């Protein structure tokens, strides 16, 4: 214990309405590569943000000891001073600055009268050699690939005299070759320079390849720390998902009708990088009165699928057929989709779901104002009644419908969002992470609303990263990996182990060339 480089003890971090971390412990030994695994929302990134000072001391409970000394970081600078450097999944590089400039951003090599450019580029070149990056340090970041950008981040960490390197999903955007290079680089740093690393990853084969120890997080708590050499993949998966299933889901007797929504050979490209497929030849169907789930990791293309179906609000070069009740549809805008009875409830209620500066009333009616207006003039009474109706039906806790949505709790905001889309009278509702960031009781209420909606014969397509939620709510579950549909499971076939196994098997497919 005495020689542990890092000890985090009893870390608890609360967000409004959510306990993101609950008494988490993490011990990392000097000179090891330590993997952290867990499902989406298990608290991995939050824990790393606590460690690196993004959440300052005082905003969480618990203690951090680095090299035996207690640390109270106020910001990232404090942790970097001790050599703790975090590299986020979304790289933090400025595209229109050069490699050298990025490497010393915030840490500029200044001499008399300003930045010493010779020194900057010389030192940059030196660190680039250490990570095996063969580029001119004057090259702009935008002109090199993602794999090389990742190396720039690591070289940047070296420039800060890194002692503990934290990598959050470092290979998620890399191809196999770049991934292997990166992992080998970490191994080389460990053996040659004694640099300790923490790596967050979903890719169990990479973890097996590179790490010494694995800590498993689940629901914001530490489950266990295992020696990599002593465990199997199945054992890790069990640790990640093996939570107790309590009665968190309201009962429903399914009464499933004919096919309501059919999507065939649906392919979508990224709107900016138009050669990148984000949804790859996906086919699925949803029956009337059915709740169908889509499981997958973040970035599997589930949101992109829903948004491209919903009037093509996302994506480029969309191809495939879309049918509702057997009738082919061409939906070219969100307005088209709403008119044809579609609703899309976004995963990001604050970002693109609600107008926070507007009242509950104005939010509820926004997507179909024509239902409460005549010739473009809003009927104040009709609108008021409609809003109060949904406030009551969904039990939205607010003094009145004039209250500003920005002042409501997350759970109540989510109910406003659901109410808004119920108001639009849809037949097919696509729910994207419908219970993200809300407490257990509010979740139960949302589940009850979903059950009521399918009871009325509506069809629900639900995207969720919480497997228990999908298992508890859905009649059928599709599994998506990297834009592809890799499986379809009935309620009886589906279990967390089966789904996680499918995801891991499918994401591994591409890397078997080297992992064995």
């Amino acid at each position, binding site marked *: 214990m005495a020689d542990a480089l890092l000890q985090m003890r009893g870390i608890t971090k609360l967000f409004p309405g959510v306990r993101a971390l609950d008494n988490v412990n993490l011990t990392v030994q000097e000179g090891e590569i330590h993997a952290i695994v867990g499902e989406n929302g298990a608290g991995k990134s939050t824990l790393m943000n606590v460690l690196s000072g993004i959440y300052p001391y005082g905003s969480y409970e618990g203690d951090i000891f680095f090299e035996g000394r207690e640390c109270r970081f106020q910001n990232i600078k404090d942790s970097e001073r001790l050599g703790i450097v975090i590299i986020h999944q979304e790289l933090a590089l400025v595209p229109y600055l050069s490699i050298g400039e990025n490497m010393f951003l915030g840490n500029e090599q200044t001499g008399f009268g300003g930045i010493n450019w010779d020194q900057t580029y010389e030192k940059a070149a030196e660190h680039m050699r250490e990570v095996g990056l063969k580029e001119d340090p004057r090259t702009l970041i935008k002109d090199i690939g993602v794999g090389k950008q990742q190396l720039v981040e690591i070289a940047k960490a070296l420039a800060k005299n890194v002692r503990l390197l934290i990598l959050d999903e470092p290979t998620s955007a890399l191809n196999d070759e770049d991934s292997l290079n990166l992992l080998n680089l970490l191994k080389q740093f460990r053996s040659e320079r004694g640099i300790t690393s923490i790596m967050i990853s979903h890719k169990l084969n990479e973890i097996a390849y590179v790490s010494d120890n694995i800590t498993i997080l689940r629901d914001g708590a530490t489950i266990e720390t295992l020696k990599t050499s002593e465990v199997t993949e199945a054992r890790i998966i069990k640790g990640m998902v093996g939570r107790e299933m309590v009665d968190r889901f309201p009962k429903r007797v399914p009464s499933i009708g004919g096919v309501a929504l059919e999507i065939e050979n649906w392919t979508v490209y990224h709107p900016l990088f138009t050669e990148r497929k984000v949804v790859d030849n996906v086919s699925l169907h949803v029956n009337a009165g059915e709740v169908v789930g889509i499981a997958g990791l973040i970035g599997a293309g589930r949101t992109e699928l829903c948004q491209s179906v919903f009037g093509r609000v996302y994506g480029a070069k969309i191809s495939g057929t879309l049918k509702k009740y057997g009738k082919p549809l061409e939906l070219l805008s*969100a307005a088209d989709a709403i*008119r044809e009875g579609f609703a899309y409830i976004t995963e990001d209620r604050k970002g693109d779901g609600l107008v926070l500066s507007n009242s509950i009333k104005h939010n509820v009616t926004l997507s179909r104002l024509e239902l409460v207006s005549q010739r473009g003039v809003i009927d104040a009474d009709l609108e008021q009644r409609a809003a109060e109706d949904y406030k009551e039906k969904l039990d939205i806790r607010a003094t009145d419908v004039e209250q500003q949505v920005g002042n409501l709790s997350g759970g109540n905001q989510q109910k406003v969002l659901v109410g808004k889309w119920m108001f639009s009278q849809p037949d097919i509702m696509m729910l994207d992470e419908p219970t993200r960031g809300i407490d257990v009781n509010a979740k139960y209420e949302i589940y009850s609303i979903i059950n009521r909606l399918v009871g009325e014969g509506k069809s629900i397509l639900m995207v969720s990263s919480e497997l228990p939620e999908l298992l508890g709510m859905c009649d059928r579950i599709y599994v998506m990996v990297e834009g592809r549909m890799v499986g379809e499971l009935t309620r009886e076939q589906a279990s967390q182990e089966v789904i996680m196994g499918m995801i891991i098997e499918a994401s591994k497919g591409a890397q078997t060339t080297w992992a064995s």
Partner: protein
Amino acid sequence: MGKLKGSFSKNIKQFVMLIALVVIIVLFQALTNGTLLKPMNVFNLINQNAYVVVLAAGMLVCILTGGNIDLSVGSVVAFVGACAGTFMITWEWDPYLSVLLCLLIGILIGAWHGFWIAYVRIPAFIVTLSGQLIFRGLTLIVLKGLTLSPFPRAFMSLSTGAIGNFLGGLDPGSGLRNFTSLLIGLVLAAGVVAQQIKRRADRKRKGYSYDSLPMTLLRALVIAAAILYFFWILANYIGTPIVLITVGIVLVVYSYLTSKTVMGRHLYAVGGNEKAARLSGVKTDKIKFLAYVNMSFLAAVAGLIFSARLQSSSPQAGMGFELDAIGACFIGGASAYGGIGTVGGTLIGALIMGVLNNGMSIMGISIDLQQVVKGLVLLAAVAFDVISKQKISLPFLTRLFRRRRQAEA
């Protein structure tokens, strides 16, 4: 409690601004030894500021769509004035036809701006800055750098002078000499009282929250008294300015448009959260396009009002008008990020600017100092708004407090 706080913080800004307006009026009334509210000065004040109110109504619509401003309005005012002069003075066209053509030109200019902003997605700041240069330049070309005057009488009667006095007065020379103004004031005041009482009755009947009867009456009477006082002042001079009709129509139409129509609701939604609005089926591009078409249309209206008052088309007309309009919106409580703001608030903002201008001019304060004062008032108004709304409070303050707490611990 939550409700009280909610509605209070929602209206606090406008209420404070109204108080500020009253304080400023009283202050300058005292500082100018009563000149500010002299009938002739009030008449002039209205004529001088009519264009600001018209422009600010359009600017508010632009700002609502996401804090976008229009820097071109001063140049558009000048250009439309130049066109009006050319049509009526140089070519001697019919005044009514000319006015219609000028309004059409305004709409076309707006469509030009709107196209680049909404569909090509060039920042409004840049497009309208370019418009500022283009239309100032075109004004000089059209006028060949000269001033055109005078306009035909029919055109000037559209927006200068007073509404004809059909009812006579006590004494045509001085004192209460315009009964028509008094009648207009009485009708409006009675209308306000009736509307307040009806509104309360409606809310009571439908089961919404409503104010007590004395409270409603008190409010109605205060507003009615203010209106009567205003028109009484006007009745002591040559009567109600004609331009007040145009301004009144603009205010009523745009209040209605922003608060009661689907289009208005979409405006607030686009400014409040553009992505959410788009996902809700709002045609966000179209809304932005229309906002700029509307802005230049109102700039054309303001251009006609202004050149009629000036009785000429001048190449220098409208310099800096955009800043008056933008200032009025922000003083009146519009959010610089869009989605928040009302026509009523903007009117208050325009009046604050107008009274400041007029009051300081009467006092003989130099133009340079006036600018400094106006700049500070604008900053103070917006700072008040930002700080009162900020839930996170000022970052440097929290950091300070945390240090202190740590030191204590």
